[in-house]
């Protein structure tokens, strides 16, 4: 199938790639741009491991076509840390052992950041429901939820 030239912006960088129209945004990020931090756990939008920010919206990048990225702005896990230090959520996840195998972690961090960017004072229920689309099989979610709540508290205190 003829490939389509896509111009987009990923983590602040201008990026161009050739997409097969059947390819998902996740395929393009991983296979054409080399950003393999976004993971495919299901390919059907059920697990959240491929979570990205697409023009400000939290999406499962396995449910977005690569060609839809034309002219858009995309944020992935590779763009989450600052130049000098990790994002507070990333730091807190390491500090509180909120990951085991780490495969779901990029998607959960992206989703959690999307929540805290909107609401830095969520209740535990809000965090649990916000992250209900991000499957983790290792941790039982306990430490993940606590890490997000603590990061929110830190953000409020430093604000």
């Amino acid at each position, binding site marked *: 199938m003829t490939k389509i030239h896509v111009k987009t912006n990923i983590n602040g960088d201008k990026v161009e790639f050739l997409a097969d129209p059947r390819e998902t945004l996740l395929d393009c990020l991983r296979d054409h741009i080399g950003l393999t931090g976004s993971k495919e756990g299901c390919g059907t939008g059920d697990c959240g491991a491929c979570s990205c920010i697409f023009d400000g919206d939290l999406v499962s990048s396995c449910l977005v076509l690569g060609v839809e990225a034309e002219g858009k702005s995309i944020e992935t896990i590779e763009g989450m*840390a600052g130049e000098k230090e990790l994002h507070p959520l990333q730091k807190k996840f390491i500090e509180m052992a909120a990951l085991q195998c780490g495969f779901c972690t990029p998607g959960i961090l992206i989703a959690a950041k999307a929540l805290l960017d909107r609401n830095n004072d969520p209740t535990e229920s809000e965090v*649990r429901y916000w992250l209900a689309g991000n499957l983790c*099989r290792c941790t039982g979610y*306990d430490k993940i939820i606590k890490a997000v709540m603590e990061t929110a508290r830190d953000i409020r205190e430093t604000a």
Partner: protein
Amino acid sequence: MAKDELAKEFKYIGTRPDRPDGFDKVTGRAKYGADVAAVGMLHGAVLRSPYAHARIKSINFEKAAKLDGVKAIVTRDDFPVGIDGDTLKLLENTIAGEFAYYDGHAIAAVAATSVHIAKEAINEIEVEYEVLPHVIDVDEAIKPEAPVVRENAGDFSVPEGSSPNVASYIEFGTGDINSGFDKADLVKSGRFKTEAAHQGYIEPHACMAQLDHDGQGEMWVCTQGHWYIRQMCASVLGLEASKLCVTPSEIGGGFGGKTTIFIEPLALALSKKSGGRPVKIVMSRAEVLRATGPTASASMDVKIGITKDGYLTSGLVEFRMQGGAFGGSPVSEALQCAFASYNMPAVHHIGYDILANRPRAAAYRAPGSPMAAFAVESLIDEICTDLNLDPIDVRLKNAVKEGDKSSYGPKFKKIGLIETLEATKDHPNYSISLGDNQGRGVAAGYWMNHGGETSVSVSLAEDGSVNVTVGTPDIGGSRASIALMTAETYGIPYNSVRVNIAETGALGFNEPTHGSRATLASGKAVYEAANQTISEMCKRVAKKWQIDPDAVFWDNGYAKPAGPNAGDFSPISIKQIASEMDQTGGPIAGHHEASIRGVGHSFGVHIADVEVDPETGRITVLRYLVAQDAGRAIHPSYVEGQFQGGAVQGIGWALNEEYVYGTDGCLQNAAFLDYRIPVASDLPNIDTVIVEVPNPDHPFGVRGVGETGIAPPLPALANAVAAATNVRLRSLPMSPAKVLKAIKTGSDGC
């Protein structure tokens, strides 16, 4: 290390530093199975059987082979003949021969220049099937007139007159169970059923393989055990093991399911057939659910006798477990775990390993133990309710302790079941008052733990930092625990240790990260290897001081004279020794190889509080407590993580998860939307208590902690639901529909 040192204060062990691979895993840099590519790489796809049972009459791939970009197609004809025994079962499961035995069984594989072309080619392969009768349910499969899954599958142990689907039979016990039942004031029995559950790791199986016609090859694969992958691939492909180099990727969960081969030999065969080009295969989630894992389904009868004051007198179990088309259900382990928590005068165990037209069961966290716990711990709860006895007190009265002979033979050394039961009894969760439609359930669980073949090395870097090389992939923080034990052994900072997971060429054979063994076995071996280097360092310092090596001892990162008689020398640091290595005899390294023993048995006790909606049958877990004996928690955060993760997998098995088959024998819920594992909004916090009764056979007191936690949730939740509703469910999962029916009709779900 002397045993009395188990009680000493540690400097690093028991602390909670950041894991060494933390940065990689929160930034997306860590490389998992599907995250690599190679120059000239092809993409593989697998054609799978759409039938539960069929004879493969012909495979025609002429059209597929003609598609632009298709470079290789393999079928069973591309694999060696003359293989038998367990290797034949592995090969049969990797790629079907004359028969497809389950929905999803691999029939052929294609390598092409893109994933799209490979998938297109799969659709162009023409297979002529003769559909055969199938059997799915374990109680159906054991009937003598059941459709035969595989001819002559039963081994020598199978009693005459059994169903042709019985692969093996086990029977063992001790004491006179009839006399035990006679002495009981209450004898109770019940039938229990559990459905197959999948390990549900979020990372699908993935590998990249390259194999030349000279028999040399290499693989990158997400696996719990790359030596297992090497051994299995070599055996089904007829390769020399040492010529195959297997590098483990980071692994996105395994839980036992990534200890065997599926796509790996297909990728190697495709690579060879395409002239040695690298071939990458990544499974879809549907393929993972249809063709890998899951664990067995089970049908179980239990009979238990008890005195009115709560002493167990006798127990009998008959477990029938279906482990797919090739046998291998964990029925033996289930029987061993059934009564392992209790000191009973008489027990008898009977087990059947049964074939069905389902994927070949793979290990799943404490294989067999959750089913056994569901049956036995549910029935004990029924007894406690009937006799109005406290469920923790009854377990305390019967709990095994040091010196007791276990229900399946081995004598227990120092164990911590009593301490764990006491911890739950004292915990606030056990006394919080409950409201309407709420109930509390208690259950215990057991796993025997495993040591296994282990090979490690350590080496001193020129600046005095230490490299540790192990063969057990890090799935849940084992780099951190191994670095902590290394730091403790040398007396150097945690951050001065780097733990590497090596490929198969770098060390001797290592069993996978399975059986709760990574921290236990690799940790014990690293301790031995590190002490070799410490001896060598002391020897070199002795030479420098011109004293006897025995007169130098190691203390907290320094070589020191053993006492005033040894001489008056200033301590020499590991940094200085390392900086002078080239002048004093060359590199300093140590290694240790052993079949690690002395695993330390593991017991856990859980308390679950639930609320059941009487109108919908929905169960909400209100609070949940895990108490478990860790021996010693090297990194307590990751020990808690194992407790919490195991408990939540058990909660999923109890409440949501099951393999749903249609009348055609095909899996109907091969997606995460329909095979529903717990999500964050389903759950409360999972409270934990780490009990520490050190394992006397480990230098730091470690017991494996990974597996026990999945067993108690199944009965704990059923017991809590019974307390909330006065209805006993003896069949899992306790889906809302099943619970509602139970409330309305009293049905136990079986």
